[in-house]
């Protein structure tokens, strides 16, 4: 290791320790920044030591869950993941994780068994690809999310295309062939990436149209053909612009997936999946609900296949899976069964609302809407989400968060009533929701990202026990 790398690791470790010592938030970012400032190539050098290679996972929704699934699969297959699991998915977060894993001499222990599993922010993917040339890149989906930060979804789609074009150039192939890309066939914006790609592609998709919905969501972001601009038509829509799409004008159409979900049954607490693979079949009972989690599992299966991980560990890991931090968690608090389901953009939220509605019964729902940087400061997306989905089933609702008043107005329009309370204090909102829920009954909490962090902390301190608890 060169002295610059060693200095960077030392600085990163020291910064991380100091920030933890003083109890400051954002410790991972500080450690990563400190290391990158001294050695901009540190990510490349440390990731390069992972003997089993690198897989990057990106997309708007599902990248945290898919990465965690990949990590569990790799562990079940006997590998030791280098995984930025704290949700810090920009370059500095990846650097911080690596600095923590490396020795002071810049060495990753037991390198032959290591696999780098990088959850990558959609805007950071081009930078990560250029730095580490991953063996595999998994793309989950592309939706509107934080327009104020990323710009339009088209900008993100273009930057992904440019990054992949660069990976095919001869001078980029320092590590052999260009990455295998694992693509969601049902998302026209993601599937488009494979059209002109010279490297290996693996498509995954849902064949079972029994889970399709009648109408295209209001929150649908890619309605026109990326090749010719004509409006796309769908024979089946699963959510948002995800479905069986084709362009009548130029003939561009959903590719036939290599990994096909041929049968799916969405249950109260689990999802049973039958999957056709290029070689044989796989059955998985995933202990998560919602079609979006079935897509996450397909993406992880695609990633495992592309990384040549064996099938049995894949099934074992998925069947024993527990949800990623705050995505779908359950807490026992004050005798109530509290479900927390992250809802941070219109498409993701609609999926969550459908999942809540699918299980029937009367609901009590506490919604949070925050407008922090990590949530996106523009909250106009709530007008594209279909809160109406759960309205007929809801007998108690409260609007909370830093933008509670906007949310209460949206709920009024969704038919929840003229006098929805707006409560900005998180602890007060939570206690009111618990009080409104009879002992032994279920409370649903649907927060945006920063609200999830706050409410989760309150719940975790109060929880007697929890069924879905993050390990480690």
């Amino acid at each position, binding site marked *: 290791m060169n002295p610059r790398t060693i200095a960077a690791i030392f600085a990163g470790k020291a910064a991380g320790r100091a920030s933890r010592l003083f109890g400051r938030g954002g410790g991972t970012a500080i450690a990563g920044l400190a290391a990158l400032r001294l050695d901009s190539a540190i990510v490349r050098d440390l990731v390069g030591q992972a003997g089993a290679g690198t897989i990057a996972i990106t997309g708007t929704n599902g990248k945290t869950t898919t990465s965690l699934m990949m990590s569990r699969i790799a562990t079940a297959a006997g590998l030791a993941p280098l995984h930025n699991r704290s949700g810090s998915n920009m370059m500095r977060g990846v650097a911080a994780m690596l600095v923590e894993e490396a020795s002071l001499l810049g060495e990753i222990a037991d390198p032959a068994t290591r696999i780098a599993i990088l959850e990558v922010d959609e805007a950071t993917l081009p930078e990560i690809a250029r730095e580490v040339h991953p063996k595999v890149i998994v793309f989950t989906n592309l939706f509107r999310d934080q*327009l*104020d930060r990323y710009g339009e979804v088209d900008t993100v789609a273009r930057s992904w295309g440019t990054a992949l074009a660069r990976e095919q150039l001869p001078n980029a192939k320092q590590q052999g062939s260009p990455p295998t890309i694992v693509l969601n066939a049902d998302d026209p914006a993601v599937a488009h990436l494979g059209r002109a790609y010279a490297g290996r592609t693996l498509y995954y998709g849902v064949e079972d149209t029994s889970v399709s919905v009648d109408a295209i969501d209001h929150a649908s972001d890619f*309605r026109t053909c990326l090749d010719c*601009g004509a*409006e796309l038509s769908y024979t089946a829509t699963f959510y948002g612009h995800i479905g069986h799409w084709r362009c009548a004008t130029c003939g561009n159409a959903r590719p036939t997936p290599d990994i096909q979900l041929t049968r799916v049954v969405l249950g109260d607490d689990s999802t049973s999946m039958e999957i056709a693979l290029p070689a044989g079949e796989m059955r998985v009972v995933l202990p998560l609900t919602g079609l979006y989690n079935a897509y996450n599992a397909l993406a992880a299966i695609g990633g495992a296949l592309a990384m040549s991980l064996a099938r049995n560990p894949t099934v074992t890991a998925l069947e024993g899976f527990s949800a990623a931090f705050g995505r779908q968690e359950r807490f026992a608090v004050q005798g109530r069964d509290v479900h927390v389901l992250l809802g941070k953009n219109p498409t993701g939220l609609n999926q969550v609302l459908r999942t809540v509605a699918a299980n029937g019964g009367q609901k009590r729902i506490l919604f949070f809407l925050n407008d922090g940087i990590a949530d996106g400061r523009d909250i*106009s997306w709530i007008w594209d989400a279909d809160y109406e989905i759960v309205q007929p089933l809801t007998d108690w609702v409260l609007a909370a968060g830093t933008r509670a*008043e906007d949310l209460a107005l949206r709920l009024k*329009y969704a038919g929840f009533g003229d006098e929805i309370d707006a409560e900005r204090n998180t602890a007060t909102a939570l206690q009111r929701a618990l009080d409104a829920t009879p002992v032994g009954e279920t409370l649903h909490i649907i927060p945006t990202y920063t609200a999830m962090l706050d409410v989760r902390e309150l719940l975790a301190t109060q929880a007697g026990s929890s069924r879905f608890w993050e390990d480690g």
Partner: protein
Amino acid sequence: MSGSRTLRVTHLYPRLMNIYGDRGNIMTLRHRCEARGITFELTELSIGDAFDPQSADLIFAGGAQDREQRNVAQDLLATKADAIREAVEADVVLLAVCGAYQLFGRFYRESTGVELAGAGIFDLHTEHPGEKTKRLIGNIVVNWEGQTIVGFENHGGRTHLGPAARSLASVRSGNGNNGTDGLEGVVYRNAYGTYIHGSLLPKNPAFADHLLGLALTRRNGDAELAPIDDRAETRAHAAALSLKP
């Protein structure tokens, strides 16, 4: 007051121009009509559909992404612009938000210097200063007719009004048309253009009623709008006044 009143609204390109929750504007127009016993009729027009200038009391168009805005711009000029101009000259109400606001001006100049023709309804043009220049993004509050309009703006283009154009409002906090002259939006006859979304109309009930009043006066000669329950609207408006830009 006449026995039965109707408001006919035409929504242009609802599936292609829908990026910033603009559906909330249509929901608001519907709600504020139906709560007063006014029949609400909605027509949606997309690519290729012709517009009949006699068919609408109020026309709405929202924001789009760049790629979709180019498709829409072509179609607008080919199939609808003349008829919309005719309607606006006959005092039909028009509300154009964000991307549509730009499209209804004289032209849009890209950073490369290429000029795209607009529908020419408003005497204004928009220039994009290039990807290196900051987009104008954030919460915005403007002064309008002794009241306030609140919302969010997110635009790269800078809009400059021509001599025949009157601005809708003056910026209290935020950027507005171009971030420099302190003006926001445009008014011509009963046609309004603005960068403000959020959605615009749900939490600006006075402005929503102003548009409804203009449309109903023209159609029925009767602008009376009975008060309705605006507690949630007023509260959301008040909360937005104190947001950081």
